[in-house]
């Protein structure tokens, strides 16, 4: 998994390591088929000012997810009337999403326990 570039000038953190896949899958699950720019914008909007995303970094993740068969692509037309790829969640992708969510919840719960135990 590649590192995402962090913009040091602003006081925002990077997308947590290993979570971009989950974020993209969840985004497609909630919003339905979207093209790359829309996905990036949506992530930025949801994250508001918590993370700084290099918008381009979603593309390597997208091809990876596509090769895994978790998302599918279809050619469509952008708002600027250009041909563009629309990404959507596949059925295996949906399954993967629930797995990833469960995994994420387990690990946050684990970390939370440690934090509680410390106090």
């Amino acid at each position, binding site marked *: 998994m*590649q590192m995402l570039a962090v913009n040091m000038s602003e006081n925002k953190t990077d997308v947590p390591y290993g979570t971009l896949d989950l974020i993209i899958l969840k985004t497609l699950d909630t919003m339905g088929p979207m*093209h790359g*720019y829309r996905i990036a914008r949506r992530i930025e909007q949801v994250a508001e000012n918590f993370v700084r995303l290099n*918008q*381009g*970094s979603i593309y*390597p993740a997208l*091809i990876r997810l596509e*090769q895994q*068969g978790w998302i599918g692509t279809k050619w469509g037309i952008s708002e600027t009337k250009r041909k563009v790829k629309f990404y959507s969640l596949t059925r295996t992708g949906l399954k993967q999403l629930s797995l990833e969510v469960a995994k994420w919840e387990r690990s946050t719960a684990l970390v939370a326990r440690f934090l509680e135990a410390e106090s």
Partner: protein
Amino acid sequence: MNPRLALARLLAMFRKRKLDRELQEEILVHLELAEHDALSRGLMPDEARQAARRNFGGIEQMKEDQRDNRSVRWMENLLRDFRYGLASLARDPGFAAITIGLLALGIGANSAMFSIVDAVLLKPLPFPNPERLVRVWESTPNGHNGTTTLTFLDWKRQTDIFEALSAEGAFRAALTTSGDPARVSGKVVSADYFEVFGVKAQIGRTFAPGEDQPGAARVVVLSHAFWRTHFAADPGVLNRDLMLDGEPHTVIGVLPAGAFDRDEAVVWKPMIFAPDQMNRRQHWLAPVGRLRAGVSLDQARAKMNMLRASLDGVIVQKKWGFTVDPFMQMLVGDTLRRSIYLAFGAVLLVLLIACANVANLALAKGATRRKEMAVRAALGASRGRLIAQLLTESLILCLFGGAAGVAFGALLLHLAAPWVAASLPFTADLSMDLRVLVFAAFALMAVLVLVGLLPSLRSSFGKLSSALNQGPRGSSGSNATMRRTIVIGEVAASVILICGAALLFKSLAKLQQVDAGVRIDHVITMSADLPAAAYPTPDRAIRFYEAIVQRLQAAPGVEQAALSQGLPLQGVQWGEFLNLPGVRESLLVRLKLVDPGYFSAFQIPVQAGRGIESRDRAGATPVVVINEELAKQLSRTFGIPSAVGRTVSIGVPGYGPIPESLVTLQIVGAIGNERTAGLNAPPELVAYLPLAQVPRQDFKIVVRTRSAPSAVMPAIREAMHQIDPNVPLGDVMTMEQVRENSILWARQPTWAVGAFAGVAALLAALGLYGVLAHSVTQQRREIGIRMALGAGSGDVLSHVMRSAFAMLALGLAVGLAGAFILTRVLKTLLFQVSALDPLALAVACVLMAAVGILASWIPASRATHVDPMTVLRDEG
């Protein structure tokens, strides 16, 4: 990585351009949309574009990321090297073509040869549990012998040793189902013959128990090939009648395609023992058996020894024992095995020499590419990457060479198969099968290591500064030494092969000079068999003999017609014991049955008394004519100075149902030796009996002709047809062909090794030429300066030739030393030639030297044409 992902990544490599284009488009649309949004938020156009760019992050880095993510990096590298390698080979098509050609030659010849080795020696027999197949013999003091009917039946009862045991014998019959009679070969076998081989009929059945007992119905099993050719693969062939020698035989089964199609026999019928064969005197059966599962060869031998001891009271040959041998081992004679290994060894040497040439070429090329490599190293390519690059180029060459080689090998095998098949056992299936391809792949890998790794290690060693500074001037020292060493090795290996070939050719020549004791020019021979139904009695057969000889003698172009059982050089089938009256000791002699014309047709001189004459007919005094060897032996063993006039007793074969009998014969003459068992075998003890007194159903017709033998054939066929149209002629061969066939065992390895030696010499010459031509090119400047300083073209010539002579001389010396060690493997194949025959070895050296000097002459004379002015101007 799951399979789906792996596949996707693999596919991505081949869709690289398309995927890159799509990504580029996505990025453009992304930036456009971002700019669009920014504009609508009220930014200025310039600011909007910058913001879109900034938010996107590093484009090129992302693209690399995406590429890394979507495919397999090392494979992309490999593909790139592959493409680069192809391009660099295409830049130098001469080098590529020669290299691929050399590899194809080496790999092709080796694959073809390996196919033979594999089929004959390595592959298990094409039958289930082949390790349980055995031959059962009686062992004599000098080897093996067949067994007698009663002993065979004793063996057959050992069901705790053998699962099945079958006798087998050959027969030939006139097939008269349609039109002209054809002569077919068959085998008579015990009913469980096919159980021995574990072969079941494809259609119908094989023999049932009891079908080999007296009184059983006449049934036959057909080979698959015969069924296809003769019955057009008609599935309704069962229960049809096959007319063999005028008697109907019911077809009960057809064998599956396979090994039995390569057997000479096309029909099998049960062997039914006649009452007179029920004895322990006639050693005529060579049984083949299948050991019971779990019985080892040693156990079988031990049990057979016990059986032999228990039968001691009834066995006639007290000194002979019983023995069991693996069938496979008996199938391939020592000579054949040696010949095949020899040819394989020779062809491996050829491959080695071809590899040496390729390595040499690669080294030469490597030397010219040092600059390119140095520059690439300077630009940051790691040494590993450079070696990988060079190895990839070698791999490409090997792949092309290997593919061409396999094709060439298949062609070679296709061409050679008819030529060698006759010498191979029927179980040998010559084909480029998977095993041969695996062998070719392994050979290719070895070649790759030899020709790829070595030069690539060397060429990427160079330092940039020295490589760049050196320019095109001097010859690079260590590389040149290595290339010269390789050439010396090539010459040495070729010398070994040429020595071997020279020895074999000399031996073959000696063999061909052997006097067969018979005049073989203008003689044509053929075989015929009298059908038992039409010729049931000796009388009928004798009348046929007289009629056919008379008719042939009158035919145009015929000088002398004769009949005999067996031909010179083909071995004598019958061996019997000869006894002098009142003497216990006996001599084992070969029995040959001939008619009065035989000695004169072959111009065998009568040395004492007389030959066989027409008065020696049925009813007259039984006579025998002995050969010189037997006359000598009689005088040695029994102290008889002149055997003519003596009487002896010999067991004489019967005719049809008439049994073999012991007959007292009068020796009426002695004749010169004819070579009965082959040109390399010493004369045997032979007794000639008149065919008219001991008639046979199977016999040979020998015709001495006035003109070319083939021209007389139609007249011979016509004569035969007039006497009896139902007796077909077979095995039509001139006596010269018979003689050639009899030394096939020596000719085949000789020509194979000879051909390989020729190829090796050419390759070594090519290697020598290559090294000299390269060094002349590299030393043009030096030569130019020398010439400018007054050296004549003679000096230049001798300068180049000196280095050629040095390589040749070293190669010859090493090769001769190798030959001294290696030619001893030829010993058993050589006839009256020592494995260190000085003349043959000298001829081999002269040949190699001549070829080598010829090859060096071209670059040497080119060196003399160097124009000092041009060279100095070019490179000054």
